[in-house]
């Protein structure tokens, strides 16, 4: 998944968790997904280092 897609999904997970009446199972599922997404995003970010190169190099 691309970073922006991960962010979109994180927003949705957070939004669904705000609903007080969701079953516990679902809450735990969302939580696990949130943690995974957060890790994925961190991985992408940690690999990104600012590099400036010339076109064609």
């Amino acid at each position: 998944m691309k970073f922006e897609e991960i962010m979109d999904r994180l927003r949705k997970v957070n939004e669904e968790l705000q609903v007080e009446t969701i079953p516990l199972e679902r809450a735990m599922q969302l939580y696990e997904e949130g943690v995974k997404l957060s890790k994925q995003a961190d991985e992408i970010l940690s690999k990104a280092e600012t590099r400036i190169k010339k076109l064609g190099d």
Partner: protein
Amino acid sequence: MEPLTVTEVSGMVKDTLRSSPKLNDIAVRGEVTGYTDRGHHYFSLKDENSVLKCVIWKSNAGSVDCLPLTDGTKVVAWGSISSWGGNSSYQLDVRKCTPEGRGELYRQYIELKEKLFKEGLFAPEAKVPIPAYPMKLGIVTSEKGAALQDMAKVFMAGPGMDITVADARVQGEGSADSVAAGIMALDGKVDLIIIGRGGGSLEDLWAFNEESLARAVFACGTPIISAVGHEIDEVITDLVADARASTPTAAAELVVKGMQRVLDEKKTLADSIAVMAEGHVASHRQALDAIDMSMWRKVLASRVDNQRTTAAGFKAELGHASSLHMANSRKRLDAGDMALRATWISALREKGMAAIYQSGARITEVSRLKKGGFEAVMKDGKVKGEVKDIEV
């Protein structure tokens, strides 16, 4: 000969002026004097020997660039001579007006701006949104220019990103085509493109006012920020691009600040998810406590405990949440009332709020209560009671 009325003579003068090709669509050079803005803009143009009354009607004012005028400035005004019969005077109805001295280039700039505007190249609906977190950035500018150095400084201090520079001539013969070629080479390969250069005179910046470059910016599928340091109001690429910045540095800051906002949002989301999950576990646990069936309680409570342990485990993995106390996390959730709600409920319970249950189900609205027995669960125990009257 029958004498004419004054009105008849006025009308004849008016018609003569209106039908004279020599007095229609003319450009007049002169110095502005007696300028007043009364909705319509009134002034006169003068030279050594004569004075000509001029007016820019309110309905035209929007398309005249040089308003408000200043007495003493030399301008070229385009328009037609007309007469208002009432006082038999004549004036220049001005449709366009540019400060003199900017000369031919300025006129070309104004004309191209009008042309491209009519074609819809500046239309908001044609603009592509600037990505909030561009991992790959393209820059079209001179690799020897100060603009690139200025931008590099900002980007090196910001979040990590892959930057590709397409070297281009940004001044002089062939520069518009050179920048256009850079855009085409980067289009589709990066998430965002910045084109630009440092400030200069209208002549220095001319590449960014050329039609071929304007069309290349418009045709580019990748979002573009135009970042040209300039003295005049704007260059044409500012208007065609998806976003504009007043200098290359400002463009870099715009991008980096946007990325920083996304990183902050990510932290807030991760914290909020941990807090909300914790809230769900806590509220389910309280619901279980209230069910007076010890076997079920045992089974379910152990399940919740398991899930809670899992949750705690994951929470530890969550870099941002692990070191924070819940209270600390909560403070950071200024993101919204929604996120605060679950924690608010437990806080209320701390203060003595009770949860009401009937037949093992939690009742959150009076309208769902039935007459008969109920249980109220507080922080440290529960009471049994009976519903006698219900008022909604």
